[in-house]
């Protein structure tokens, strides 16, 4: 039989959430529609309509304004206005009018609600809960494609089972070595009955026993690594790889219900799949020349592209990329130390910005700094550290991490300072927040030790964190700074709607999506005295400390994940086409669903920014 009103049916069928309805429902849906025409300038929803309806713009355009007249969004062909069918209005209340002569399809809210009850997919889309919609956005984006690397998101339990040698803490090192040799394993679990005490590896025996001249009859407890980091059979392979890279370890005991069931080694993971980050990290550790490092680093975009198709989360991909950047940095430092000799005093090599936050996408600018012990004496030490900084920085540049345009690098004498010098820097930034200092905040309030003396950095942090937390003026300036990058209002046809009278041709995912959330997380963390620098970790820590409402925190986390995934996918597509990766997405490349989800993420960011504006009275600072 011919489907009546097929144009209307097809028009609805092509867009979410109607595309989630089965044919039978879709075919009968047009019958419940009424069609209205709204002339340019008239109020929307039409004032002469009785009852509540969901509106679909069939042609024309609707402009929405806040009560103070500010443009808050526009609806064009195919877009939905659902406010009247929702218990809670998501956006700010306001007024709307037809900006062009518009043809509207009206669907009674009762019909929509009934469909939502019988078809949960459909209902979820129109849900009142922004929370639910954002969670769906992330799920939809991650599940989209599968590829060879999809197996990285399988649990460790999928790896071939490998038992481990179990030894007691009082067993001799010699007997442990004999059993490891017999079973051809490079590590053993040190157990007290059923309790895991530590891990013993070939390397421990070499470094802490043979090299030190320790008696092989001594108990293994003397040289084991106590209280090791463990994983479970459910831990994802990619997370295990990232964990090893981050902690610079090669063995992870696997515990099920607290009981050791095996051991996963770095070799297992590199063998498991070539092309994963563990493989590259292992290659980097073996590289003997800058040329070789540059060669390995050139594979980074391809790794990012493959990970993007693997169903991994943005953070997992960020961790994998960061593992490689860190490994490169450490290898460059090791090569430099081999050239220059060991460092004359204790120091820490710090990464700043996105590397510190573990949020890099393949090749970004390098931001780094040197933190030296207070034993620093310019006359005798300056030559060494400026040579070290030069060599590592040049090496990173050769590997594709180009010099920081703002010169925030260890080669800049300002950023190569003893602990006391860094304290003075931070005191100045916190006590006299100037535009330049605030610009540097995204680099120098996001620092992480990549190599060297962690205690030095802990000292610096314990100086900085209470001061930044307690200085209200500094925090207020940081809040104002966190409001400089605003999300767009939404989309209008093929444009990004920025605000009244301004359109962009492309969506800058970085500055209009990711940076605002990163800035918010930094502000919240610093105002709560939290030391984490990763955006997700900051938001979670703020939520758990009560510095950020649970709902808002979860929404920001999902918004961040969704935009970051979109960026990774966008860049993966560019890498596949052989063009340089960037952050600019033309709205035409986004699906209807992605546009809708993006609008939700913009709403979350805007909501948080408005909250900050009120809380910190930032209007007075600008």
């Amino acid at each position, binding site marked *: 039989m011919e489907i009546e*009103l*097929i*144009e209307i049916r097809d028009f609805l069928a092509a867009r979410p959430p109607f595309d989630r309805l089965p044919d039978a429902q879709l075919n009968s849906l047009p*019958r419940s*529609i009424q*069609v209205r025409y709204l*002339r340019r300038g008239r109020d929307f929803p039409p004032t*002469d309509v009785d009852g509540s309806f969901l509106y679909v713009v069939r042609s024309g355009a609707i402009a929405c304004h806040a009560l103070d007249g500010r443009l808050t969004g526009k609806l064009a062909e195919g877009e939905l206005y659902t406010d009247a069918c929702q218990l809670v209005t998501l956006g700010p209340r306001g007024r709307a009018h037809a900006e062009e002569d518009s043809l509207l399809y009206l669907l009674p809210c009762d019909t929509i609600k009934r469909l939502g009850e019988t078809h949960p997919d459909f209902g979820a889309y129109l849900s009142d809960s922004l929370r639910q919609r954002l969670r769906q956005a992330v799920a939809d984006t991650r599940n989209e494609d599968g590829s060879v690397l999809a197996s990285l998101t399988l649990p460790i339990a999928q790896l071939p089972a490998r038992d481990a040698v179990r030894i007691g803490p009082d067993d001799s090192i010699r007997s442990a070595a004999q059993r490891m040799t017999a079973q051809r394993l490079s590590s053993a679990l040190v157990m007290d009955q059923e309790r895991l005490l530590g891990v013993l590896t070939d390397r421990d025996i070499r470094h802490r026993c043979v090299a030190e001249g320790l008696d092989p009859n001594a108990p293994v407890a003397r040289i084991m690594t106590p209280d090791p980091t463990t994983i479970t059979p459910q831990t994802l392979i990619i997370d295990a790889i990232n964990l090893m890279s981050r902690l610079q370890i090669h063995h992870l005991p696997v515990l099920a219900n607290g009981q050791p069931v095996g051991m996963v080694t770095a070799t297992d993971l590199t063998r498991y799949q070539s092309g994963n980050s563990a493989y590259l990290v292992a290659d980097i550790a073996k590289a003997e020349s800058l040329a070789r490092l540059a060669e390995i680093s050139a594979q980074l975009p391809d790794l990012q592209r493959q990970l993007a198709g693997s169903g991994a989360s943005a953070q997992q991909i960020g961790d994998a990329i960061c593992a490689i950047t860190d490994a490169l940095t450490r290898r460059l430092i090791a090569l430099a130390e081999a050239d220059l000799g060991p460092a004359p005093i204790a120091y820490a090599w710090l990464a700043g910005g996105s590397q510190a936050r573990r949020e890099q996408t393949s090749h970004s600018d390098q931001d780094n700094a040197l933190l030296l012990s207070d034993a620093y004496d310019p006359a005798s030490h300056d030559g060494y550290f400026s040579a070290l900084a030069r060599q590592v920085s040049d090496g990173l540049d050769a590997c594709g991490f180009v010099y920081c345009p703002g010169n925030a690098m260890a080669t800049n004498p300002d950023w190569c300072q003893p602990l006391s010098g860094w304290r003075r820097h931070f005191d100045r930034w916190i006590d006299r927040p100037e535009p330049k200092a605030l610009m540097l905040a995204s680099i120098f309030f996001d620092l992480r030790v990549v190599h060297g003396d962690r205690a030095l950095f802990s000292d610096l942090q314990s100086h900085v964190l209470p001061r930044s937390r307690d200085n209200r003026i500094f925090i207020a300036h940081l809040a104002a700074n966190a409001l400089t990058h605003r999300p767009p209002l939404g989309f209008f046809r093929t444009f990004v709607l920025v605000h009244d009278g301004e359109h962009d041709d492309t969506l800058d995912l970085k500055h209009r999506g990711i940076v605002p959330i990163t800035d918010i997380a930094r502000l919240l963390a610093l105002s709560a005295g939290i030391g984490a620098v990763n955006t997700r970790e900051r938001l979670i820590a703020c939520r758990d400390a009560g510095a950020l409402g649970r709902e808002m925190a979860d929404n920001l986390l999902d918004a961040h994940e969704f935009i970051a995934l979109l960026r990774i996918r966008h860049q993966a597509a560019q890498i596949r086409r052989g063009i340089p990766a960037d952050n600019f997405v033309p709205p035409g490349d986004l699906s209807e669903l992605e546009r809708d989800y993006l609008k939700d993420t913009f709403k979350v960011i805007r909501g948080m920014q408005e909250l900050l504006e009120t809380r910190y009275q930032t209007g007075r600072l600008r």
Partner: protein
Amino acid sequence: MSWLDRFTGPERARQRALRQVRPGPLHDLLAQPWPERTRLARNARLIALDIEATGLDPIKDHIVSIGLVEIVDMAVLLETALYQVLRADTPMPQDSAVIHQITDDRCRAGLPLAQVIPEILQRLQGGILLAHHAWVEQGFLSTACQRLYGAPLVVPTIDTQALAQRLMRNRNQFVAGTSLRLFNLRSYYRLPRYRAHNALSDALATAELFLALAADIQPDGDLRLGQVLMH
């Protein structure tokens, strides 16, 4: 209604038809008084109707399909949509089958005219016929009524083509021959493109065009029937 109207124009034609008509749905329709010209269009029920036929001559040609949809309170209510294929007694000429995409087989599956017309008349009763280039629809329906009930169809009518022509002339716009076609007028008002030559699609297209024309003629929404009725 002025006293003069009783003896001239549509009202006189209605009275005359009412005297001729046999009892039935046409009688009931003709018994309805002519609507007041001052009545607000939003308070009237409009029946947008399109007929696809084997040709343009109501005597020789016959109806292939009829589509209609009603406008109430200036909203097109799609639940009122009706689409009916009619049974052909003679094979359909080739070219018209191509235009309407209805084959002889499907036509034979349709209903006889005598069964379809009563429902159409019931819908039209007390309402206003709305059509684009309305004399075609009026001609075919009236011929059918004459055959079935012995009287012509006299029904208040709005013709979107005539309305558009008048509007453009009043604005001193040049009216080219093809610019008054349904498709072209819709694109002038930036209404979406529909599949042409399906009776229901065209009826809906006509209904939407009327809403656009009405908003253009009387932007404040207080359009009166006298501003748009053919007579």
